[in-house]
């Protein structure tokens, strides 16, 4: 069997598709760490192994609204209002909370 130009094309196409999809995913998936001061978002998903149970107990659950109230220098830690609970967490935790930004609060 010979490798034709068409085969190479096909492979290239698949690779291109994968890259595009990854980028697309990146653009769609924001984490809490991406939220800017004053922005609001809805919590989508929480990676259960990385986020302490305590944070969930304080109201950080899928479906709840979150607002970024204040950022310390270097954006770390961050001061949030999650579902009425006011708390501060570090970036290392925030990046495991996937969110969907709300436009203009």
């Amino acid at each position, binding site marked *: 069997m010979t490798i034709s130009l068409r085969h190479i094309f096909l492979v290239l196409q698949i690779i291109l598709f994968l890259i595009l999809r990854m980028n697309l995913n990146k653009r769609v998936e924001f984490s809490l760490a991406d939220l800017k001061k004053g922005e609001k978002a809805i919590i989508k998903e*929480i990676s*259960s*192994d990385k986020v*302490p*149970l*305590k*944070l*969930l*107990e*304080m*109201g950080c*659950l*899928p479906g709840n609204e979150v607002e970024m*109230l*204040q*950022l*310390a*220098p*270097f954006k*770390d*830690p961050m*001061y949030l209002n999650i*579902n*009425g*609970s*006011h*708390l*501060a*967490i*570090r970036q*290392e*935790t925030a990046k495991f909370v996937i969110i969907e930004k709300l436009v203009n609060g």
Partner: protein
Amino acid sequence: MAKQINVSLIGNPNTGKTSVFNALTGLNQKVGNYPGITVEKKQGICKLPRGVKAHILDLPGTYSLNASSIDENVVIELLLNKNDKDFPDVAIVISDVENLKRNLLLFTQIKDLEIPVILAINMSDRMNYKGISLDIPYLEEQLQTKIALISTRKNTGIEDLKNLIINHKNISKTPCLDASVIDVEYFNRLRNAFPNQLLYKLWLVITQDVNFGKTERKEPSIESFKTKSRSELKRLQQKETIKRYQFINQVLKRGQVIDTSKARDLRSKFDRVLTHKVWGYVIFGVILLTIFQAIYDWSSVPMDFIDSTFASLSEWTKRALPSGAFTNLIAEGVIPGLGGIVIFIPQIAFLFLFIAILEESGYMSRVVFLMDRIMRRFGLSGKSVVPLISGTACAIPAIMATRNIENWKERLITILVTPFTTCSARLPVYLIIIALVIPEGRIVGLSYQALTLMLLYLIGFGAAVLSAWLLNKILKIRSKTYFVIEMPNYKLPLLKNVVITVIEKTKSFVFGAGKIILAISIILWFLASYGPGEEFNNAEEIVTTEYASQELSDEDLQHKIAAHKLEHSFIGITGRAIEPSIRPLGYDWKIGIALISSFAAREVFVGTLATIYSVGNDDEDTIKNRMAGEVNPILGGPLFNFASGISLLLFYAFAMQCMSTLAIVKRETNSWKWPILQLVIMTAFAYIVALIAYQFLK
């Protein structure tokens, strides 16, 4: 009926739980420790109508029954052990009216243990202010409980709460949730294996790493149910949390109405400034400076008063009691020893006053938020700021304040470096040596002496931070790193709470650390008052013959005798024995004795030198003059010169000279390894630095 009602207060931090405790018990409370651990146990008696008494236990604040610290473990251990003498007849869950949703999570968990629970909704005076209205009958029905709307600030609702406690037998024990919804199949298996046990209790026994009462341990087969992996269990715990919130949301949808248009928001206005990238730090700095200024300025008056009172008390004892060994022990050992403890009360009380105000007002959490990133660079946590600030008064309460640092490595490092911060006990040593060796004079309006003192504080803080950085590199401890801190609402501190905190903390300092300081000063007195052999026992004769040719006043002669006795007492012999090892630092045997005795507590240094230099009273100026007159036995010239003075200052800045701190570190780390390492490394480092300083400067 004579039996007391056992009541446990349970609730999230920052809900005013302690205020409720204070309101129920008044000053009728005592603070101790749970056996074997240093978690504070606060209990008190509440007098109810009809002559009934309730025993109130204030449990440590917790967000749920999933414990992540020893303080939180205490709550679960009690609630799972029916045989504990404190096991509640009725539990009161205290909730903050603004965070009802989150507080109900803990409520539903305790309810599932089939313990009767009263729900006390605190800060109800803020309901209008926040536009909140509650349908109490509906909530009582849905949550199967009785609700008391209280406000400790306005002092309302406390009587209702007391009535509910009396009638606790009428409160339903029915759970709110069916625990098996978490994982039906797994819970069915549990139910079949332990048909007589409460399901939710089993679940807690499986998921929590806590010490359960002996009765629970008799169930070895429960181990076999830990088959699920840690992460699987954690996923189930998350599922449990979600299920609980679903229930709570559904109840609150009808039971609670929040009209946000009516709500006023002071928090965000304050936060905009207090957590600001620039202003936040400026304000924190100003607050710190004010606190330092206040502690040193305001406490100097009562401290001088205590000092002179104890001096005259000691003198009075000597005159009033028949002379003899016992009188001497009282007048020279016990009373100065007690004075050494009592003299720190003003500073400690002021410090606790400020810390209590900062904590009660909610500002401390903002400081933690501001400092976390900076502290983390050195392996510490934002929460380490509180111990490091408290450490400037005393390392003992500071080390106890590390408990709310969740990460063990960060907590351990904080415990290990806190003794470097300049505690108030170093101050007397610094002051007298600075007065001796640092010239008076000013540079741009600031005196050299004040600058030196400030420099010493900076050195202490720098040593703490740098050693933290080193420890962070060296220690190979992997602990789950997470950091979640609640930012509570700003509140005007309640005077009653602040006063009670200050009294309690000061009392525990005096009786805790005080016992050790007292014991050491008695031992020191014995070692300094007795000695072996001719030289000690015949001191009077020897000195009298030696100075027979000189015309000495009676008083001077007595001083000479006392000094000679001391030199040949047990402690004097020890001082001479260690002299060769401290000579390279520029010290003589007398300073050596002071070094040894001040191992018990640093402030003993000045007192010891005062005795050694034959000064009868504690007047600092006289000690200073005597010290200035001391001659270096080998090199000639004053003993306390610039080189040996700096060397001493540096030694005191770094050396671990505080038995009480070591004892606390042992208790908090539960091992002798850390305090011993602390003692050896800090003292060795102090020795090396002092050696280098003296050799360079001499």
